[in-house]
């Protein structure tokens, strides 16, 4: 009798923490997802009180839409480009700032971290100015080395404009992952490196055999995080820098195309279907990644 009352009290205590969170989760995550799923089966302008049930038509339409293919391609282009770019640079700077005896490493840490505290909107506007063909920094800089004034429209290439979105997003991402990696590296006991030094291992050898394995957990988390945030969040930078897909729909990612369809061309149901697609693709990608990256983590003892 006594124990069951105790159990009940304990359960109540636990429930008082879980239930409010769960309710919030249901209201703000589960419900919208279900709503989006439901809307994706309708032909609805997003402004009208009338909508028509059309089954899987939106999805069938999507497989025939060439822009969807471009958008998915661009999404993965940014994912791959960002994972490679950010991870290489962040790891390099993290190692450089911890393992090499730099005098002003604190200063550099701050400098690299600054883009992370700037809003994406500011970053987009800033890089728009850098790329501006007439008054931009990039052309002005290049003009120093050429006889004629350089007037390249960096965001106006018919085919390769999406490449131009990589530098700003990588630049904006390095700081955070660098700090993550620094935190992991400083936790590695100095004695390991000392022993390696005595054994005659160079910097590269030390990095490969000591640093890499011991920060693998952080690298894994970083990669998954970059992938997910890129698949969900490239919308902002694309919207800001190329007004969602310009020129001529070559820079769309799924997020920007969703926005355009739902809010600018009055196909809300279709937009919802794209949203469902983003969800599915993100989930599959994450699962595959978890598999690929499942390497035994080496623990320090």
């Amino acid at each position, binding site marked *: 009798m006594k124990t069951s009352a105790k159990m009940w009290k304990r359960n109540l205590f636990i429930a008082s923490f879980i239930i409010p969170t769960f309710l919030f989760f249901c209201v703000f995550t589960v419900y919208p997802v279900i709503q989006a799923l439901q809307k994706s089966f309708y032909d609805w*302008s997003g*402004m*009208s*009180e*009338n909508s028509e049930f059309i089954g899987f038509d939106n999805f069938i339409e999507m497989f025939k839409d060439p822009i969807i293919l471009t958008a998915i391609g661009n999404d993965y282009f940014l994912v791959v480009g960002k994972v490679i770019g950010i991870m290489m640079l962040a790891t390099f700077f993290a190692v450089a700032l911890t393992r090499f005896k730099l005098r002003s490493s604190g200063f550099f840490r701050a400098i690299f971290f600054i883009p992370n505290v700037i809003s994406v909107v500011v970053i987009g506007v800033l890089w728009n100015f850098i*790329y*501006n*063909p*007439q*008054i931009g920094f990039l052309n002005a800089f290049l003009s120093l080395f050429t006889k004629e004034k350089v*007037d*390249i*429209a*960096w*965001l*106006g290439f*018919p085919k390769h404009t999406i490449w131009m979105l990589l530098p700003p997003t990588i630049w904006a991402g390095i700081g955070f992952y660098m700090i993550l990696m620094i935190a992991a590296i400083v936790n590695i006991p100095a004695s390991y490196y000392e022993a390696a030094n005595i054994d005659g291992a160079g910097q590269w050898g030390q990095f490969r055999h000591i640093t890499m394995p011991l920060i693998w957990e952080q690298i894994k988390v970083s990669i998954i995080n970059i992938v997910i945030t890129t698949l969900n969040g490239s919308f902002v930078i694309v919207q800001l820098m*190329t*007004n969602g897909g*310009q*020129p*001529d*729909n070559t820079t769309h990612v799924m997020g920007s195309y969703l926005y*355009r369809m739902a*809010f*600018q*061309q*009055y196909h809300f149901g279709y937009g919802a279907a794209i949203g469902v697609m983003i969800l599915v693709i993100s989930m599959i990608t994450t699962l595959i990644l978890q598999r690929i990256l499942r390497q035994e983590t080496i623990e320090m003892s």
Partner: protein
Amino acid sequence: MEKVIADFQAANPDLKIKQSAGPKINEQMKPRWIAGNPPDFVYIDGPELFDRQMVTDGQLEDLTDWIKDAKNVDGEKILDLLAQKPQEFDGKIYNIPFVLSAWGIFYDKALFKDKGWAEPKDFEDFLATSETIKAAGINPFIHTGKYPYYINGAVLYPAIVSANNNDYTLLQNMAKNDPEAWKNPAILKALNRIVQIRDKGFIDKASVQINHTDSQSLFLQHKDAFIPNGLWLPNEMAKDVPGGFDFGFIPSITQDKGGKFVANTSTATFGIAKKAKNKDAAKAFMQFVFSKAQATQWAELSGAPSNVKGDISSSKAPNFVKDAARFLSSPDTVVVPTVSFSADVDKAMQDATVALTIGKITPEEWVKRVSDVVAKQKK
């Protein structure tokens, strides 16, 4: 608007009027439209509120019969007062244009006078002048590639009308998604004008990637000589206009030698919700705002030209507005009533035009692409 409503309230003390406005008003009102509880009277302007879509969605009251002999509070027939007639959707009228603007090409009169360049009267002139401008080291033409409806509204549509012997019904038929209209060779001829401007290297390379503000700034800095825009440009950039800058405005640059100017108008309109609870009061308000007194007051307070006819040559309006008014009322100008295309077709045209200006597609491909979208709409 507040002043107009206050006046209306004073004239009708027994009515209870609630005004909802603000920069985000269209977004804020969205749930009410969706839920079938819309405002009675709506000013259709700004983002996320698009007349053709509202008609398609069945949100606007059919005003066709009412407007036929509706009179304003002074007893004048409203239709007779309008400079621009209401747009018809399948032969029906749902919204009445109140604010009138026009697309066209701006240049700096002061700069042109200084350099001895003449205002172009036709396409041949435009090309010749542009050649001179280019030789002087200035880019002849800039547009806003991020929002290609500027170049469509100010260059392409007038060019189509010119190429179609000044008959603008072609544009209206195109907007109705009539597949035959889209086969008209006038469209190709118009697109080829843009190709000519492109191939002569007159289009500022920056155009493709910049927004309206950036293109307007470059124009104001004399980096570019001509810019396609709407009459609102000088007001929009008021804070950045350099001293001595004198806005010149021509409605179109694509007409043949001796041909008429083509002025493509754009309007902001008033409508009444189909589900309005006080339709009579809304109509009474419509009759009130379309009086000469209210229209003049609107024009003075907002700085935007009103759609109610009147002589502004003696008013305090700036020169370019008077220029525009002179063009709009001249027999040598074809005035094109506002045409709104469906959102899908409009976007397809914008994308295709940008692709055309950077040489990615040919005029034939432009027509093919947009016609495909039109065909899909018809289904």
